């Protein structure tokens, strides 16, 4: 890139030129290129659209881009048509010709591809009509559908780096003051006030200071940070540059997990582009402020999301947590003052600088300001990324945006806060989601993972699942965490397999107590939350497993058996055809039966039966 922006005014002119060169009526096809939509073939759709537009709409000026995650993963692959704002869902390669012919050229709607509001049964044409989006306040995700994440010009045209220019005018102290006043708290899980952290780093003595972006998102089912880095990398980078300016840092790192190849590629490209325009590197926007960022890829260890383990990993050592005797703001990376914030925290910064602390703190609650992105997954009608004001109730998120539990099943619990969070039952649904309330209830907000469970979910099995994850992700340093979690995992296995007794439960509680009390880092001390919270709220399920050798949800294979209800069965033999073990026997058109000795309890017979004749005991 040949242009180097010499001062804030040059950035403004650059933006004005970009905006002037763009026709606001220009049509564009924005295919969601988030991880979920990619997996469903979004890139094939982009290729097909490109070919179709070239063949049939060559005269028509159409922009085509794969954006970052647009959030509505349930509808993937998603297609957004601008400027009309039409949203199509489940778009396949076979739909492309019709979309180009009817909608792009003819201005007609392809009704088959629209979303339907399940409550009103009405079809939704535009994003703002879709209930999933209606319940949200999208600040950070606002631009994800509009931006081409590979283009800095697209970002600047939408106001990117305006906050940086503003920050340079304000000066570091004023920026720091604004962040403090906004009440922004760290989005990575701990919820520490960002302004106070920045202030400590700014005041710390040091020849060189570092800022780090924690993009080592590892919670199963969580993808907020991935969506931000993939969809709006310049927004995150701009936040880091502003933070570095406020703290006097010269060097930054983005620690991103290797399993996010697209995020790595996008942030790396964004850094190069920003450097090219003089928004990063020496004399940023002609000022005396110099700052550069490099990308470090993590090897996939969950524990490297922990600050001291991340410092070790960045320094080239094994990613193991160590006791921190001083704050990172005094002695962090290479022993120098360091500020570590999560992706989502950094992404909030430009918005606060541009719109002010008063605007930011008007969103959310008194103690937890702003919005928070949750990744809503599990047994819920609409999965995806939900951005709502802090303090929104669990009910509003799960039932409002998420549309509740599918298939008429009853809601049982929602797991918040990632693997070390806790499971909250139905009577906690009206709790406001903020840092302090969830912690008081034995769970935590964490980085924003939210897994919905219905009546067919066994809570003992859920606890075992998370224990298995954490036991394998423990760094292995502390005896209590390494071996305590492994034994807890095995004991929960005993319970789900019918070998548990009341003594097993007592032992589980004793071990959990020691793991929590004597492990070094937060991975260990919070790892027992899934067990303790399910024991607290779903003790009767544990008791059913140990006393009656019964799994109420019908999940634990060792404790269940499948039979066929002779009155309902019409002998269609669908189950017999699908049974992998040949365990279903019976004459055609006569009730069938399951040979228990052969049955491996895979549940396929139940899934394929059209008459609900397969019963689980």
């Amino acid at each position, binding site marked *: 890139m040949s242009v180097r922006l010499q001062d804030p005014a040059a950035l403004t002119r650059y933006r004005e030129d970009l905006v002037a060169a763009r026709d606001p009526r220009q049509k564009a096809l924005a295919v969601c290129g988030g991880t979920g939509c990619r997996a469903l073939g979004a890139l094939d759709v982009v290729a097909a659209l490109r070919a179709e537009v070239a063949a049939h709409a060559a005269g028509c000026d159409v922009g085509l881009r794969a954006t970052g995650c647009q959030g509505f993963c349930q509808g993937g692959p998603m297609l957004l048509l601008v400027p009309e704002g039409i949203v199509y869902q489940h778009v396949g390669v076979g739909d492309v010709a019709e979309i180009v012919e009817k909608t792009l050229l003819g201005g007609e709607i392809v009704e088959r591809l629209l979303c339907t509001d399940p409550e009103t049964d009405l079809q939704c044409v535009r994003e703002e009509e879709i209930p999933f989006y209606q319940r949200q306040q999208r600040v950070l995700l606002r631009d994800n559908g509009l931006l081409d994440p590979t283009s800095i010009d697209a970002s600047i045209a939408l106001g990117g780096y305006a906050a940086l220019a503003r920050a340079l005018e304000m000066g570091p102290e004023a920026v720091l003051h604004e962040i403090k006043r906004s009440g922004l708290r760290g989005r990575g899980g701990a919820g520490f006030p960002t302004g106070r952290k920045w202030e400590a780093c700014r005041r710390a003595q040091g020849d060189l200071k570092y800022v780090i972006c924690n993009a080592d998102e590892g919670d199963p089912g969580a993808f907020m940070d991935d969506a931000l880095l993939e969809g709006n990398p310049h927004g995150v980078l701009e936040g880091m540059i502003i933070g570095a300016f406020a703290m006097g840092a010269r060097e930054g790192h983005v620690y991103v997990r290797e399993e996010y190849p697209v995020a790595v590629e996008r942030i790396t490209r964004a850094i190069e582009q920003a450097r090219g325009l003089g928004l990063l590197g020496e004399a940023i926007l002609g000022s005396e402020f110099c700052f550069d960022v490099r990308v470090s890829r993590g090897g996939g260890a969950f524990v490297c999301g922990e600050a001291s383990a991340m410092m070790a990993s960045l320094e080239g050592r094994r990613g193991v947590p160590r006791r921190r005797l001083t704050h990172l703001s005094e002695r962090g990376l290479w022993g120098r003052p360091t500020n570590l914030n999560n992706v989502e925290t950094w992404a909030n910064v430009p918005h606060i600088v541009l719109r002010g602390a008063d605007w930011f703190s008007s969103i959310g609650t008194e103690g937890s300001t702003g919005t928070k992105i949750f990744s809503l997954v599990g047994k819920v009608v609409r999965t995806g990324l939900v951005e709502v004001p802090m303090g929104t109730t669990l009910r509003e998120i799960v039932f409002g945006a998420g549309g509740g539990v599918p298939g008429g099943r009853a809601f049982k619990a929602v797991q918040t806060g990632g693997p070390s969070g806790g499971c909250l039952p139905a009577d906690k649904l009206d709790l406001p989601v903020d840092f302090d309330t969830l912690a008081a209830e034995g769970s935590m907000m964490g980085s924003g993972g939210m897994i919905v469970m219905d009546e067919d979910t066994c809570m003992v099995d859920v606890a075992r699942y998370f224990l298995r994850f954490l036991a*394998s992700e423990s*760094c292995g340093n502390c*005896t209590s965490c390494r071996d305590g979690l492994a034994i807890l995992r095995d004991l929960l296995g005993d319970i789900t397999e019918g070998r548990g007794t009341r003594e097993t439960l007592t032992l589980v509680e004793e071990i959990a107590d020691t793991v929590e009390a004597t492990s070094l880092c937060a991975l260990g001390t919070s790892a027992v939350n899934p067990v303790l919270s399910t024991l607290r709220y779903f003790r009767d399920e544990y008791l059913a497993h140990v006393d009656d050798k019964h799994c109420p949800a019908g999940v634990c294979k060792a404790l269940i058996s499948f039979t066929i209800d002779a009155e309902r069965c019409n002998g269609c033999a669908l189950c017999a055809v699908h049974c992998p073990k040949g365990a279903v026997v019976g004459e055609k058109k006569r009730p069938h039966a399951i040979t228990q000795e052969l049955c491996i309890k895979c549940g396929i017979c139940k899934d394929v039966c059209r008459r609900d004749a397969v019963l689980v005991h």
Partner: protein
Amino acid sequence: MDVELIIDGVQVTAPAGASVLDVTRRAGRDVPALCYHEAVPAIASCRLCLVEIRRPGKDRMHLTTSCDYPASAGLVVATDSERIHKHRRMNLQLLLRRAPHAAVLQNLAAELGVTGPLFAPVTDAALPDCILCELCVRVCSVLGYDALAAIGRGDTKRVGPAFGQKEALDCVGCGSCREACPTDCIPMVDTATSRAIWGRTFDLVACERCGTPLMTTAQRAVTVARGGLPKDEYAQCHACKRAALSEKLASGMRG
């Protein structure tokens, strides 16, 4: 600089920054620790050296490990409470599962009143009776060899030749790891002329006077090169060197 702190109600003086474990032990308190050695950085792995501490201005005692906690002015330390013993016993049980044959653990179990193991022993460990304290790794590292490392994570973590190799490529066969190992679990086989350890076999240098094995040729080469020592520095064992010197002096006096 020295600081004053209180250990089990008794005021003691200690250098600021010394580990609370060292200070309590020097004050005559018996705090068990298996992964600690003054010569290497503490990693607080075994979780047995638990104490309760209270910093000035705080009102609650806080359970923590003492080996990686520095002494500071006004610190209040308690080494004997039911809370400490309860968790120490559980962590000892977890260690006993890994090292059922280790005498050091059995003695501790007897001392702490742990009767019988709570858990079935691990049978598929890469290194039987290893408690993963990484003393071998750390000792090897401060000696400048870095031939060993912790590998993997979770309960399948193990220690062994760096990068999971079959042989410890940078090992010189000094045996310091074995010396430091609290459970004595590192196999090392010496014959009159060779030493086998960590998948390698080394030639032993014998004292030219008495024939006692001194060290491996590899260790001698590295030590002589690092220290810029004379090539014949390790030709004889200490005893023979001393004997030779006395003989020389004696003959000089006589002469």
